[in-house]
């Protein structure tokens, strides 16, 4: 059971993703549900450039080696997008990370983006900052907040794993009139974010960042697979619940 089911699930998902991406490579894929978070992301870089201010993106505290590592990978996709746009205008987003393993990845992303855009300034030192260890949420939150306070930050993009400490950053950002986009896999963080902004990516939605921002066939395909799984899950859940009722 503990071996078979995961094996089946993994194999099925892998196969579907590969096949789906093949299929999507030729024909048009499905339309993705519009998400306010990603919509907001799009204008923020331009906004920041226009106002000669910077964008701040925080990748959260999830390490690559944890349960939330996919969250961090998704957050990196967001960073990549913002970096592409920002570096093309010599305003790479200020990036703060809450875990050591994210730091080099973030640096690579920005460096790559700068090279692609042939940015003249490249990545100025201090663009990517490690704030605090993953396990010091409030130190991390305080550090991120101070970044927002000290720099001229126009947009605050917080994607990745955050906890309730997010409230501190949100408060400071709000006080500094910073437009916020928040995505997290932690219901607590989301609960804290809901009153603050509309641009929220709830768990799964954040994990879909690559598909939304890069839209490669395999990413879209995996969203389709995800939806298929979702429906299967729903049916199973309902089936089980009904069975319980029937069986008494």
């Amino acid at each position, binding site marked *: 059971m503990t071996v078979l089911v995961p094996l089946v699930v993994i194999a099925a998902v892998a196969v579907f993703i590969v096949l789906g991406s093949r299929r999507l490579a030729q024909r*048009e894929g499905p*339309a993705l549900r*519009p998400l306010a978070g990603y919509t907001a992301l799009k204008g923020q870089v331009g906004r920041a450039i*226009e106002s000669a201010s910077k964008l701040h993106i925080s990748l959260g505290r999830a*390490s690559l080696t944890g349960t939330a590592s996919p969250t961090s990978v998704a957050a990196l996709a967001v960073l990549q997008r913002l970096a592409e746009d920002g570096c093309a205008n010599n305003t790479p987003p200020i990036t703060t990370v809450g875990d050591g393993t994210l730091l080099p990845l973030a640096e690579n992303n920005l460096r790559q983006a700068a090279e692609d855009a042939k940015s003249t300034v490249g990545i100025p030192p201090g663009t990517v900052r490690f704030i605090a260890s993953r*396990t*010091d949420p409030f130190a991390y939150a305080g550090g991120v907040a101070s970044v927002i306070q000290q720099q001229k930050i*126009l947009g605050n993009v917080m994607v990745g794993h955050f906890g309730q400490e997010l409230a501190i950053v949100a408060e400071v950002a709000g*006080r500094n009139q910073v437009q916020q986009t928040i995505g997290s896999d932690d219901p607590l963080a989301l609960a804290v974010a809901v009153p603050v902004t509309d641009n929220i990516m709830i768990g799964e939605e954040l994990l879909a960042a690559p598909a939304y921002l890069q839209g490669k066939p395999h*990413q879209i395909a995996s969203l389709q697979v995800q939806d298929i799984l979702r429906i299967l899950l729903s049916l199973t859940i309902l089936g089980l619940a009904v069975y319980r009722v029937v069986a008494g």
Partner: protein
Amino acid sequence: MTVKTICQECHTPNPPGSKFCSNCGARLPKSTSILCPRCQTPNPSSNFYCDKCGSRLIKEEAPQPSETPPEEDLPTSAKMFSLPTRKPGDTGELNADNVMEWLKSGQGQFEGSDQPETGKLPRLSDLTPEQRGKTADLPAWLLDSDNEEFLIEAPEDITTEHFLNMIQQIDDDERKKLSGMLSDPAITGKGGKLPDWLQDFVQSVEEEKPPASQPKAQPAPALPDYDEAENGNDLDWLTDLDSLDTDVLAQPVDSQSSTPGANISDDIPDWLDELEPPNTQMLSRPATLEDEVEDEEFLPDESVPDWLMAENLPNTDRLSEPRLGSAVGEASAEEEEYPDWLISPPDTSELELPAEPAPVDRFAAADAASQKSVTDWLVGFDDEDEEEGEEEIEDVYDLAVEDTAVSPAADETVHKSLTDWLKELDTGEPATEEPADNSELAAWLDAGDEEADTDFSETAKKETDWFASLESPSADEEAYEESLSFGQTGPLPDWLDELEPADEAQPPADQTFMSGMLDDLLGPSEPAETAASADTAVEEDDTFAEDDEFSEAVSPLNVNEEPDWLSELAAFDPNDLVTQETAVSPPPPDEGELFAAEPAAPEPEIAATAVAADEETDEEWADLDEILTGVDEEEEIADWLEQLSIPAEIPSDASLLQENETEKPLISTGELPEWIASMRPEETGQQDSLLPSVLPPEKEGLYDIADSLADADLPDWLQDTDVVQPEKTAVPLASAELPGWIDTDSEIGEPSSELESILAELPPALPPEEMLLKAEIPEWIQNLKPTALSGQPAANVDFRLETTGPLAGMPGVIKVEPIVAMPRSISPAAQFTITKEQQQQASLLRQLVQEEQQPLSSDQATTTPKGRQGLRFLLALLLLAAVGLALFAPGGLTGSQPASVPPAAAAMNAAINAAAGQPVLVAFEYTPAMAGELDHEARLLLSQLQDNGSQIITTSQSAAGTAVANSLTQSLTNPPIAIGMLAGEAIGLRQLANCVGDSSQLCRTLQGRGLDSNTQTALQNVALIIVLTGERASLINWVEQVGATAHTPLAAGVTQSLSPVAAPYYGSGQLQGYLDGLPAVVALSDAYGSSADMTQAKLQYGAQSLVQLAAALLLVVGALVMATTRKKPAA
């Protein structure tokens, strides 16, 4: 993915694609969707990567034929205001709503009451089918980059470069095709490629032909049966000439324009008959301005032949009032009659007539309107040619734009009519941005112009009427050639028609002329001098002197003069369109001014080069900068000066009609009354002498307008002027044989040379510096504006403080036009290249301005930091007070009654007891931040474990956690085993899981660290794992990594906040139980007792209930207060 559609009325972001605002029910502008070049997926306009295939929506190589250098030279914004020009990359929202923003901000400065009016703008524009069609097929034709013809097939793309392509293509092949096309039914078939509206247009053209002959009836005013007809047509072109004078003049125009419009409405596309409603609305305005008396007066005048009335028009508003009356009275009546004269048999003489006004306009003093009327006229001949038709429309609208630009300055009623009117234009015009231009221009235009402007708008509409009614002549080959030439020259149609014969005779001569013309625009140049005749040379001096005068101050003469050469510029209507569009591009209005003219410069160039020779284009472009410097101010001045020029111009028209036999008078009258007079017989001579006398009062009138923009003033000075002119003009006009000169017109090459000479000298007349001076005039007029206007200060400007950008903190910053034209990398042929970076920047700017449309960050839109600061402080005080109170009166609410033990806590207690005597692994996954709540749990659990005689093993994933563990376990009598920190989050836990539980083997090392045997066995025998955390990630890590693999019961002590997250895992059995926060701790300790000191916990618990109550009340009260004091989102 898609950008939310912002409601115009209430600025509520609505889900993309929704047609009505979810908040106020207002209709919402539609949002464009861009088909992905690769996968054809409709992408939200904000994308610049495809949602599906990730391919770039902004094509690196734009399909645009790149042999249009001007496009590069234009500010990118040049295209941003003509929707049609959207390229695959131009993924802005259809800017209807943004135009809205523009209008608001532009008009807001004059009066805020217009919001609702303007608010409607985008709706109408959205409704026009052609726009939908446009957005729909936009990618379709834009994407096949190899298709050279597509621009022709997609007339939406009427911008500089399209215009150029059009012209050039005409030069190449269209010239041959056109004649064929006229009769060719395939044109409708070809229309299949065209957008619907253009197709309709073609059809309407064909259908209109018989009625269209009507205009020819004009030259025979004597015929009573034609009165009506003349009334219609006469006014049509005559009113143009004087339309600039006063609001009154608008009336006849209204009536006229409305009648044909109504008549044609069936056949012509929607956007054309859209133009009518405003007229009717305009009619209402004079009622407010004028007294009934005048209305009665006009009745007798009705009998007066139209041409006579036309004569009177310019002179006095009293005389012209009748027009208003007739307009009001006949508006409906004429519509019935309209069919009659439409059916009236055409005669050859009439055929020429249309051309007649052309010379007038050709040299009409600064009267852009009259210019337009004629150009339209001429264009009317070649409607069959789609491009021509298109360009024609452009002209019309561009004119309209100029007019309405000032509209904001007008009084309330005018505003309404204008705004509605604008709506029509907006809907009608493929480029929905015109209104934006208007408002933009309004920012600096003289408020006094409002009357003129309204007239302008009328004329503009009338143009379309003309245009629609005049197709039949085009059947004639001659007319066709003319139209052709016009098509080529585009900007400078009139005189080019004049030259048409000459052109065919010797093209080189034409080229030289053209270049001379261009040089003139640039400034003094050889060809111009050489071309100039002796007379003109003398005149040139005069003009110089006059210009000098002008430079000092706006003297009537100069004022009079300005229009003459300005009129040339006015001729470049298509360019004007672009020009004004560009004007809107930069956020700050003044910038807009600067920008405004720039694009205009390329246009003349283009036109000229197009006619002369395509090869010339490049070198011409070298001069671009000079042009830019030179032409801009001229453009601007033209707008406001037009008003002044009219009186002078009218006599000239009259004289023109009188002596249309010869070209000279034409030139002189049309162009520069004074020096023309010198070239002419006496009559014109007197006219010239008259002019000065006329002008001074007129100039005062100007100042009156400027100072107090009351409409009442206008009649006065107008009356002054009219005294002079009626006699002078009436007679000649009566005897006007139009056909005569028109016959001559076609053959004569001489007039063309004459024109050359005149044109040649014009530009030297104004060095750039002087233009600057003139350019400033609008400024001071502008300064007077706000106070003069209904005393409304700029308060009506939306006062939302700019929160971002360089203008941060400034109120009422005009919204940025939300579509940024994408620079496109162009074929190597062009000398400009666009880098990917530039493209990205532009796309980003576009995104930026789009974002600007949305309400800023949620909190920004509502409260200012100041207010929030006070609120924050008040809140803090209240909460602290509550806490203090709660601490001093503990248990005030909880009393002595113990809290009931939650089942999960009971289960946890059971699990702990079950593990009695066996080692228990306690993970301290929290930092001191959560110690306030979790320490109590930890103490309770540790004490219980100790009481149970369980060996405690402590670990943590964080350094801080281990420190907490140490501090908490120091007091334990039975020292715990600390295996220290587990690095690597889930990975570390996995390793631990392999060491924990019965099934696992002994772990000699953990994460490379050696474990002593005692620890190894203890780990192996762990009977319960307790995770103390306030972090979801930590809990999930333990549950998923350890709980799922190690067959060891797992329990958790979590904060109240985490309790809902722990619940599912407890429900699924992955957690044996969990303590959720202080209440559970207190309940547990109450229920089962504890050796640990729980006093502090109980104190807090007692306080907590009170504090929570206070918080709940604060939340409710505060939320209610805030909700009631909620600010409406800034306009």
